[in-house]
């Protein structure tokens, strides 16, 4: 009797599941999965005749100077930004979690999320311009301390453009990450911390031994979401410097866009497959790591 009930329940669940999920599943199939198979197919063909070309597209991509430069810059950007963002936002979230009236401060940090990129780029252009606010400020500081003279450094058209992008990314995403940290920190029961204190642990030990180990799950999601958001820095880079920026900030996103504009679809297909597979593996690995830790 019970078994039959379970069977009925299972069938009912399956039917309801597919009725509710049908529009979304159909959309994902039509707009993402099937065309992605098409892309995989194209990555093995020549663009003009559509003849089978083996791995020659992949070979072209991996010997392409622009591709190698873009991969290098993108990896560099990610490796600089994510640890920096994680650390900065944790440093702000920790005192915030102890503050009673953290609401206003939190919303101020979240505000950059609402600021459209086109708007903020206007501001960065004035600030980082050769005769802009940053140099004005530094020159005044130099005059005041008597340590250096006038500064006319062009941040946007030199290798400092990379630092400007990093700054812009941190500026935009700190609020988001602080909220994630806060959710994690406030999720740790106070009793745990109290118990450690009663046992004579110093504040530093409480943080290292009690708070931090409990934040590891939080760290996983923060890293993954920061990584996802790091691709959106293309907006700032594009608006500041266009399709062919200073070579330190030529990112994979620029490359994809330029190949797309020039209709070099065979190369693009091969690169799409490579980047897609790489990201898939990274996401799966991170998820696996997190799962094993939880158990």
């Amino acid at each position, binding site marked *: 009797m019970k078994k039959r009930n379970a069977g009925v329940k299972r069938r009912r669940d399956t039917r309801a599941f597919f009725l509710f999920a049908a529009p979304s599943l159909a959309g994902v199939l039509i707009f993402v999965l099937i065309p992605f198979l098409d892309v995989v197919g194209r990555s093995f063909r020549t663009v003009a005749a559509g003849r089978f070309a083996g791995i020659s597209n992949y070979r072209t991509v991996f010997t392409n100077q622009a591709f190698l430069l873009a991969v290098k810059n993108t990896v560099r950007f990610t490796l600089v930004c994510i640890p920096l963002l994680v650390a900065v936002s944790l440093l702000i979230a920790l005192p915030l979690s102890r503050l009673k009236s953290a609401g206003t401060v939190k919303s*101020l940090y979240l505000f950059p999320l*609402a600021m459209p990129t086109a708007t903020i780029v206007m501001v960065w252009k004035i600030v980082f311009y050769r005769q802009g606010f940053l140099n004005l400020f530094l020159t005044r500081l130099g005059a005041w301390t008597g340590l250096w003279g006038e500064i006319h450094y062009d941040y946007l058209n030199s290798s400092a453009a990379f630092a400007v992008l990093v700054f812009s990314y941190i500026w935009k995403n700190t609020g988001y990450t602080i909220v994630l940290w806060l959710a994690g920190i406030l999720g740790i029961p106070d009793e745990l911390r109290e118990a450690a204190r009663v046992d004579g642990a110093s504040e530093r030990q409480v943080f290292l031994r009690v708070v931090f180990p409990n934040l590891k799950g939080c760290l996983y999601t923060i890293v993954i979401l920061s990584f996802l958001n790091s691709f959106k820095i293309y907006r700032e880079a594009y*608006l500041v410097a266009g399709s062919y920026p200073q070579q330190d900030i030529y990112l994979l996103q620029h490359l994809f866009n330029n190949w797309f504009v020039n209709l070099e679809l065979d190369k693009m297909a091969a690169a799409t497959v490579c980047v897609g597979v790489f990201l898939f593996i990274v996401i799966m690995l991170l998820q696996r790591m997190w799962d094993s830790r939880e158990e």
Partner: protein
Amino acid sequence: MRGLQRLAEYCSRAEGRCRRMGRSIRTVLQVLALLFPTLLVLLPLLLLVTGSVAGNGELGRYLETVFYDGTDYITWKIVPDYPTFANYGKLLFMTPQFFVLFWNSVKMEVCILAGQMLVSVPAAWAFAAYQVRYGKALFTLYVVLMLLPFQVTMLSSYLVLDRLALLNTHGAVILPAVFSAFPVFLIYGGFRGIPPQLLEAARMDGAGEWKIFCSVGLPLGRSGLLSAFVLGFLEYWNMMEQPLSFLADQSLWPLSLYLPQITWSQAGYAFAASVITLIPAVFVFVWGQDYLEQGIVFSGLKE
């Protein structure tokens, strides 16, 4: 003996006072440390607003060095000498192009968000309320899709949009966004707190699955829905990659792509346009801040 006791008392009191003072100094320092980065957030806003109400002549003087490529620095005034709304007036009443793009933005935003709600809410409900074979694998697929950047899906989208003859129409931007996996994930975060016993109880009372969705799921999962709405609004108001790739005709572009086209010689105008672009985003931000935070927390949940 008594003197010593008093001395000890005095000392302990003084120590307490010192410690209390130390603590309040630390609090002040903490608040200052938290407020300094806040300045970094507010100064750009201030810059935009003052720039937009400074007259063209005045702004021209501030930015003189930009036009002549001089060696002087930019100057600025927190309160302009002659504040004026002329730039706003010009933008709102004498620039039809601005209106067209503004309405493009609104149209795409409304269609995307409405479509996302219609598609994602039932899908999120399906994942949250029903246990099916391969349900977990499907959900993992959604998570991966959600995490893939636009550049990876760009070529796939292009191919299918080309096939459906949607390129260079607003549909090219709207349809792929409607089937985005991100809102499904967020709304799922709102639904997953509903205890299964509640659904079972509703079934005992003879409610159908659709009825349960409408009268149990939707009211209880409201926070997930609104989170997806707020995060979606801010994301698509700021959308650039999709229209840039799929809309060749500039009269179809959203506002977010219009601003960068304004040159320095029309700086005041650009500032005013920036502020107007900012207003809807700020409005949604202020109205939906709780949901925004909630949404960020949902986006961090693991399935």
